[in-house]
């Protein structure tokens, strides 16, 4: 059966140390982890700021970011494609069909997730901390780093949600990356391609490797956060 074949294929692929596979895995990790990093640099402070700030239209902004958590990847890909295409406003950067374009598309996809989930974590923390921090003389701006650090254990889960979304995503990277072998081919686009070609065993093998990678990343984050939490309570 294909299922048995798939496990054998996955096993074989991993053991063979196939350079093409290694390259695909490396690119997948590079694109996804960079996108997560960029999204965190933007999303964590912005999410915390959105939690603390009071301005007219704040409710609408929150709803928009919540809705953007469900932004379809192909739409994100299309937006970045239009922006980066030769006739687009950022066409002069010549970034279309490069890993950088893939990072931009994934960042666009997961930054709203980081913002919305961070806001909700910080909302809860702020209701506990507000009086004390204001009593100490902390401005809302100064409270942002305090709250992000004190919320670090909950925020690991927020970051993992973003990571999961980026790892699993295929539509956006396919559109802006183009699935060019040896250059912009990732785990997910390779799976889509092999499935289309009918090599289900290879596709499933790649799928198993992708699942294992995701599992390892999550286990690593979970364990390190657990250990740190035990030390800092």
């Amino acid at each position, binding site marked *: 059966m294909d299922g048995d074949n798939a496990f054998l294929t996955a096993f074989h692929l991993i053991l063979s140390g196939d350079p093409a596979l290694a390259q695909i895995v490396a690119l997948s990790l590079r694109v996804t982890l960079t996108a997560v990093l960029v999204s965190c640099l933007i999303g964590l402070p912005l999410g915390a700021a959105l939690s603390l700030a009071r301005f007219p239209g704040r409710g609408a902004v929150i709803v928009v970011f919540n809705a953007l958590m469900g932004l379809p990847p192909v739409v994100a890909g299309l937006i970045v494609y239009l922006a980066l295409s030769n006739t687009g406003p950022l066409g002069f950067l010549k970034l279309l069909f490069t890993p950088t374009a893939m990072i931009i598309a994934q960042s666009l996809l997961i930054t709203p997730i980081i913002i919305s989930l961070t806001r909700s974590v910080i909302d809860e923390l702020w209701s*506990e*901390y507000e*009086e*004390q*921090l*204001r*009593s*100490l*003389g*902390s401005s809302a701006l*100064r409270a942002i780093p*305090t709250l992000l*650090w*004190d919320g*670090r*254990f909950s925020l690991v889960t927020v970051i993992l949600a973003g990571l999961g979304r980026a790892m699993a995503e295929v539509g956006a990277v396919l559109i802006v990356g183009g699935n060019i072998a040896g250059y912009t081919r990732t785990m997910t686009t390779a799976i889509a391609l092999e499935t289309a070609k009918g090599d289900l065993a290879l596709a499933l093998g790649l799928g198993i490797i992708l699942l294992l990678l995701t599992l390892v990343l999550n286990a690593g984050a979970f364990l390190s956060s657990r250990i740190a939490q035990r*030390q*800092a*309570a």
Partner: protein
Amino acid sequence: MHGTLSILPLEVADLRYAVRGKELLRGLGFKLLDGSRTVIMGPNGAGKSLTLRLCHGLLRPTGGRIDWSGPAGGNATKRHAMVFQRPVLLRRTARANLIHALSVSDVPRAEQAERAVAALAHFGLSALAERPARTLSGGEQQRLAIARAWALRPQVLFLDEPTSPLDPAATRAIEQMIQSIHDEGVKIVMTTHDLGQARRIADEVLFLHHGRLLEQAPADQFFSQPQTEEARAFVKGELLW
């Protein structure tokens, strides 16, 4: 605090506070002077904590005035600190909690570590310095919260029921800290509904009931000859609501 200008006296006039039309404080007026320990007493819901929060600037009054009318009163905000009934300590070490507070109040970075260590040592808390604050016992957490407030070198220290969730040993430790801070010349303003504690600490009593100030008197006078029916009942330990 000798050698620095005082923010005291604190003059409060016709202080009102209402939430959704419900009047919680109905025109309080009092004057707090330097040197003495003022204890605000009254049954639950009298408005004790509200009064502290308003004086500390955490809440905005719906009416009336709160004036720090001393020579340094124009810049009073950073000269008074508050200790809450349930202190909120940050998820980091005891020492890092103090450093955070000093950093927030713009103490130069070079001085922060030194002042944090000194504050812990001053109250015999050095052994706890590297412990995560959230793993400390309730009494230790409250002592740390007081050390944190003290490290900011306030002229006035507000304490809101600082010992109510604590056992007698921890309560005693806290009362000793309050005493030593008072001895250093810091004005103490605290709330309590514990009569014994009020007798031990108070130089002066403000008695609140249903959002009104019924009495302001020297402690011995308040406890021996309360002027109002409510205060008499309260001092006798009768249930009052």
